[in-house]
């Protein structure tokens, strides 16, 4: 900070998530030296500058994008920034939320401002109803499949339509979370009763008269009927199937009933990229997606590490066992999600099925902590990125919903969850 002060420490929160281990004992010592130094530096800075801080020893610790909403820091109409691209998650509350780089974080800490140019507006409308077995994750992946990972570059997306309105706040967070995978820096959903019900009573939400005043304003936060859109995408909710990714970009997404595509089916630079992806993923064109065998299952991350995600996975796993030799882990998105899952008996379902029951953190979403894939290991993951090496060097990632990941854990191959419901 070059001798400068934090301008608004009371509006700033910090939590270690990316690099902390998710195994017991981590509050005593973090073995990896670089991680330890980084967490210690955060600890010291948070205390020195008086920032709201949730250390690993605090039950409220977890992934920042889960902790913020859970603690009521994230409110409609706010501008929220964080040095992480999945900050878009907070857009689910009708906040303008986007990821920024380290220099920009420094700029915000020092000045509480950011130099920005106006984004273009994209409307993504999901009409109608979702079919059984189809979740918020399938919506967000299907949108990326349609727009491509650069389709949203320069835009802020507003998700709307009947299927979006019908989602819980948690589902809405899953949708907005992956706006960035579609290239948009922010995705948001107009606040409504679902939003207000979620926010009410949270530790940092407004209370009493301020609650009423806030509600009055929040209710005005929606797009006018004649609002200008630079781009409009409409998808019928009924047309969305449970999907999985087959390649190394989140746009490489297909319904589980499909087959691995041939590179020649694409155009331009994507032909090369698809060849490279199939090679990296060890897949042959024409293979049914359902025949792809997996070694590991990871349920967690800021995309799908909330209580409803755990419930959805547990509903599939209840009374079942994971495939022999399968490595499977559940990593709740926060200490509070973990505690609730234990209370609801979900933890027992996971453990009895053969899953490891971990402490909160980013875990295997990004291989910056001890949870990693080995070269060639194939993982069904509920996280958001399937880039080469994302979950560990040479690791192969298939993205999907928590229910789909649970189904795959039982059968040992990618599976259409609808067949198990």
């Amino acid at each position: 900070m070059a001798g400068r002060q934090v301008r608004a420490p009371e509006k700033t929160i910090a939590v270690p998530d990316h690099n902390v281990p998710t195994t017991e004992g981590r509050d005593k010592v973090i073995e990896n030296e670089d991680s330890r130094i980084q967490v210690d530096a955060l600890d010291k800075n948070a205390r020195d500058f008086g920032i709201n801080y949730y250390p690993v020893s605090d039950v409220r610790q977890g992934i920042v994008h889960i902790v913020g909403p859970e603690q009521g820091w994230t409110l409609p109409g706010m501008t929220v920034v964080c040095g992480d691209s999945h900050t878009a998650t907070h857009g689910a509350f009708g906040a303008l939320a986007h990821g920024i780089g380290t220099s920009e974080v420094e700029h915000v800490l020092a000045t509480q401002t950011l130099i920005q140019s106006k984004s273009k507006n994209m409307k993504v409308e999901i009409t109608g109803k979702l079919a059984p077995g189809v979740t918020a994750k399938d919506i967000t992946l299907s949108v990326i499949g349609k727009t491509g990972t650069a389709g949203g570059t320069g835009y802020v997306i507003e998700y709307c339509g009947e299927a979006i309105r019908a989602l819980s706040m948690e589902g809405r967070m899953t949708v907005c979370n992956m706006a960035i995978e579609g290239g948009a820096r922010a995705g948001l959903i107009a606040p409504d009763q679902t939003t207000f019900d979620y926010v009410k009573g949270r530790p940092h939400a407004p209370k009493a008269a301020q609650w009423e005043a806030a509600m009055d304003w929040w209710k005005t936060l929606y797009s006018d009927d004649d609002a200008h859109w630079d781009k409009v995408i409409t998808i019928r909710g009924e047309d969305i199937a449970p999907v999985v990714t087959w390649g190394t970009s989140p746009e490489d997404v297909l319904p589980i009933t499909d087959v691995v595509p041939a590179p020649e089916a694409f155009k331009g630079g994507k032909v090369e990229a698809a060849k490279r992806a199939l090679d990296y993923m060890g897949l042959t064109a024409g293979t049914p997606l359902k025949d792809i065998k997996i070694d590991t299952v990871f349920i967690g991350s800021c995309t799908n590490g909330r209580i409803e995600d755990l419930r959805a996975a547990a509903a599939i796993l209840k009374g079942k066992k994971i495939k022999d030799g399968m490595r499977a882990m559940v990593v709740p998105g926060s200490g509070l999600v973990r505690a609730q899952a234990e209370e609801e008996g979900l933890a027992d379902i996971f453990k009895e099925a053969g899953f490891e029951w971990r402490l909160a953190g980013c875990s295997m979403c990004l291989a910056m902590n001890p949870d990693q894939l080995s070269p060639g290991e194939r993982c069904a993951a509920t996280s958001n990125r399937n880039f080469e090496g994302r979950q560990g060097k040479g690791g192969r990632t298939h993205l999907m919903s928590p229910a789909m990941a649970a189904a795959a854990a039982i059968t040992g191959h990618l599976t259409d969850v609808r067949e198990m419901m």
Partner: protein
Amino acid sequence: MDKFESFSGVAAPMPLVNIDTDMIIPKQFLKTIKRSGLGVNLFAEMRYLDDGSENPDFMLNTPAYRNAEIIVAGDNFGCGSSREHAPWAIKDFGIKCVIATSFADIFFNNCFKNGILPIVLPQEQVDVLMKDAEKGSNARLDIDLENQTVTTSEGESFAFEVDPFRKHCLLEGLDDIGLTLEKVTSIDGFEAQASQARPWV
């Protein structure tokens, strides 16, 4: 920040689309609390073999491109995570300019904060520059920020757009925070008004 001077340099061709920040700097190198010294880890997973030795096939390991100062790439360069380690690693390696048909937004912003010039040009022009870059170290591209042009070794010149304020900051090596703090009275005014209008924040 150093001033961005016009220069002529070797350009490495990387005709891939969606070069993401995990490729640019894999996450195992994100644990540093420093911004310097990341150049050796730039493109680490493509650049080094499993035993840690250099992959002789990777562009930046070949003699022609070891000292490249420019990268010419496909669509959507820098997509993925917001890690500023990506521009830090690029800068530390010695790359001062990246040319592509499009960039991911966060990466694009991060470049300017670190004295790197990202240039967006249409596909046909990037194709010409890619061909020129493929000639190796005999071909150098001229980057002229003042006049907003890129010129090939054959003398063909393309104009590019850049935000005037960002151009000014790059040319003068200005620090954003210092500039913003000059406006502190406006910030105070805004905050006073905002805390009246929305006292719950």
